[in-house]
């Protein structure tokens, strides 16, 4: 993940990049290789306590699945 002066937070990938918006940068930051998937979701649910926890869970799963498809992350 990198901070671009004019684009804001971006996730740099082989010959491409993803502009991260909303909670995107925080989710990427939490995928640090030590947290479990459940741990990432629980952390976000506590940080965004106003939002529906089930919605957070669904959106995080969808976001991470899209990152996996782009080969930006591995589930272990």
């Amino acid at each position, binding site marked *: 993940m990198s901070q671009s002066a004019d684009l804001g937070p971006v996730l740099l990938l*082989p010959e491409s990049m993803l502009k991260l918006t909303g909670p995107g940068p925080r989710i990427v930051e939490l995928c640090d290789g030590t947290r479990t998937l459940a741990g990432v979701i629980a952390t976000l649910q506590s940080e965004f306590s106003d939002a529906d926890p089930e919605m957070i869970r669904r959106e995080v799963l969808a976001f991470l*699945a899209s990152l996996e498809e782009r080969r930006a992350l591995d589930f272990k």
Partner: protein
Amino acid sequence: MNFVPRALIAEVTHRCPLRCVYCSNPLEMRSRSEELTTAEWQRVFGEAAALGVLQLHLTGGEPLARPDAEQLVKAGRAAGLYVNLITSGIGLADARLEALVAAGLDHVQLSFQDAEQPQADEIAGTRAHAAKLDLAQRIRKHRIAFTMNIVVHRQNLGRLPEMIALAEQLQVDKLEVANVQYYGWAFENRARLLPTRDQVRETIAIVDAARERLKGRMRIDCVLPDYYARFPKACMGGWGQGLMLIDPAGVVLPCHAARVIPGLKFDDVRSKPLRWIWDESASFQRFRGEDWMQEPCRSCDRRTRDFGGCRCQAMMYTGDPDATDPVCSLAPQRGLIDAVIAEAAASPNWVYRINPANQSAPLPTSSF
């Protein structure tokens, strides 16, 4: 209009242990004595990052022919860039691979010439395939992004399923199935390299099926020959709009082939700041915007998407760098491309290049 470069292609040397029949380096190569030093590259990476560049592609020639490749990786990372090493991998021992990863390398792109050794070695003009297979397994042990690049053409496209299987076996994150682009040395050999129309159709079907099957495990990028396209490629995302290339001696170019365009003076980072070259120099301004365009581009709806296609290809075929890219079905000179397609049925022998950059200074065998 304000254009921000996002990627820097750094050709850190033209020296190379391979002599591929489709080499994209210019016909006139730089010698070792002309190459930018470590400190000069370091400064240039900083200037690039300040301009907005996010990605650094270390390439060549063979970038590992430079004994300071690890320092270049480190300098790229220190400038905040995502560092990609584009390599043939020849002679890359474990200790050096580890040093490159420790220096902060984000991504390795390893080139293959085929799935089968004899054919791969014929294309490379040297025995390289076995070493690449060995290296691929060692790269996979590291936590870095790993792309396998196979340059495809008429002679090897029949083995595309085997190439995909090899990429799967080597567990790469991304496979690039890249048709030869007919510039540099490849232009000389285009009659032997251009696939048939049936091969192109089959490629699309095979790649689509593999993408579906490998979803989530491996991405596949596929570059088709633009000679068969209805419309031209948006070459480099538009001239001087998002990308720049710096050659071993520090000359800054909008693309690999830009030197074929006559009358342009390309500035170098030893005498001018990179920001000035990007923003102000005549060569980068030359095809920005639409003022240079002729018909049919000038009034075409696609001009904002493909920017009239490739200026170098227009030059190489029509002698006019402002002409519509001749691959375009709307181009008045499309017949020139159709003639090449027809001519490609006959197969002359390969023309191997000689690498003059190697002759004055052989590769350092101890560190490489």
